[in-house]
């Protein structure tokens, strides 16, 4: 996503952008990674840093072409003035009169302007499910899943959708299976033999992943964070579906078969009373 933004801003093919896995021992501390904010904040920093680098190139090109900088247009991986087009390497090579010279674009973000409001966005995720309930065992089977991520703009749609699916799957684990069982201080189910996480076979046969793109985020091009919004709604979603399907209201997760079965038993007992 960061490389996509850089390619877009610099007007160069995506393949020309290299994202370097850097060593945090020698890079600056990046405060904003976390809480789904990389695209919004780091993405915005990349965008602004590209624009700052372009501004530097304009000043250089203005000198080389003897044209006022404000008459220059950044276009197709370089600067255009009338019919003359200079690519970024051409500008740098001529300006420095040496090959292999480079410049650094900078941008700093702070809590000001567009980013005055904190949090910088609300991540809104909506999910819907259809389930089957085995009334004899209490086991819940997920038949279909729909997620909606309000992401402003999906810069990388396939990745955004798969993050929503991943989040929903984590939500599914927490809602149906995952729980830490303690005996006093001792964790009793510390291995995957007894701590169940979602498997491929638990995924819904019918999955629809939808994105809302109103371009209303403070990130680049109206993007905002995504990828976590589908975690939390899955629990209440399943519990509500269970209520609709079987008439039992359970307020404790996970909805294990035994817990559902007990609730169904209690409901039957209540109904049998005159």
């Amino acid at each position, binding site marked *: 996503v960061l490389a996509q933004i850089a390619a877009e801003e610099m007007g160069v093919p995506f393949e020309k952008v290299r994202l370097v896995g850097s060593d945090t021992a020698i890079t600056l501390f990046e405060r904003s990674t976390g809480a789904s904010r990389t695209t919004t904040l780091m993405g915005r920093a990349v965008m602004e840093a590209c624009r700052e680098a372009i501004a530097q190139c304009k000043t250089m090109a203005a000198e080389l072409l003897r044209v006022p900088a404000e008459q220059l247009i950044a276009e197709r991986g370089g600067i255009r003035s009338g019919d003359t087009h200079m690519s970024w390497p051409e500008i740098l090579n001529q300006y420095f009169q040496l090959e292999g010279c480079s410049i650094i674009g900078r941008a700093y973000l702070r809590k000001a302007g567009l980013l005055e409001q904190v949090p910088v966005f609300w991540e809104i995720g909506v999910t819907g499910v259809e389930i089957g309930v085995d009334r*004899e*065992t209490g*086991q819940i089977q997920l038949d279909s899943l729909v997620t909606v991520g309000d992401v402003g703009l999906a810069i990388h749609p396939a990745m955004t959708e798969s993050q929503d699916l991943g989040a929903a799957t984590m939500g599914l684990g927490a809602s149906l*299976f995952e729980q830490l*069982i303690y005996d006093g201080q001792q964790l*009793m*189910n510390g291995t*995957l*033999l*007894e701590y*169940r996480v979602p498997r491929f076979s638990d995924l819904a046969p019918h999955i629809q992943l939808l994105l809302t793109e109103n371009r209303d985020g403070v990130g680049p091009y109206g993007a905002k964070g995504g990828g976590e919004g589908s975690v939390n709604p899955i629990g209440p979603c399943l519990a509500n579906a269970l209520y609709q399907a079987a008439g039992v209201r359970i307020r404790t997760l996970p909805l*294990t*078969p*035994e817990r559902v*079965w*007990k609730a169904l038993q209690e409901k039957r007992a209540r109904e049998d009373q005159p």
Partner: protein
Amino acid sequence: MTTLSRFDIHQPASVREASQMRAHFAGQAGIYAGGTELLLAMKHGALRYRHLIDVKVIPDLGGIASRDGFLEIGATATHRTIERSLLVREKLPLLAEMESHVANVRVRATGTLGGNLCFSEPHSDPATLLLVLGGAVRLEGASGVRELSIDQFIAGAYETRLSPEEILTRIVVPCSKPSHRAAYVKFQVHERPTLGLGLWLETHDDARSFTAARVAVGCVCPFPARNAFAERLLIGSRTEVEKRLPDAAAAIADAADLIDDHEGSAEYKRHLIGVFLRRAFRKALGEPSA
């Protein structure tokens, strides 16, 4: 992270040599068939062996043959081999079907039926089914060859009656006959099943009555166990037997000495036995389980 402690692997050329190795190393050697359970237990320090006897390399110990109405399955045949064996599918399709649902495909590709039975894991699917199919194991050692039925062979959780110089060589199971009906059903939430239930019926008069029955549950008790009282309740006309299913389930649950654990409360397991006995009954008779 747990790691394996050092051990030596020995590769016998024959069953006789394997048996001699067992006798030689006394309790110091484990039998290495698939290793899917053994190596995990060794990693966790639950088992400590200085020597492993690799029986997988013994020629012809993994073959599958049909002889005089019985399937003879070599001890080192993997679950996957049995699941895919055309012979097993033809002679005893239920065994192939059960094998296709053992653990996951990685375990099935490596784990062996003989290893599974010798490990005597309380959650073993094959042991429960073989018990109701009337299966037996062939054991070979210096003192000769003997056959034990599955219930004779399994002595408890992780315990068998394999003597210290014996090797399990074959699993012998009667082939299915037209009058036989059988089913294996299980309920599973975690990595291992919560309940496994096997049912075998000998039918008469187009399945309108049953002349013999075997039923066993696994996972909910230390080792898979048949229940004679429940089996008597499953003999008679279909209508009578169907009415007695709840009583049979209760008898099985009483005998299984159910306990509360991570798989569920004893009360829930008792309930599941009732549900799955009925489902097994319907499935055995080829009817929808609803």
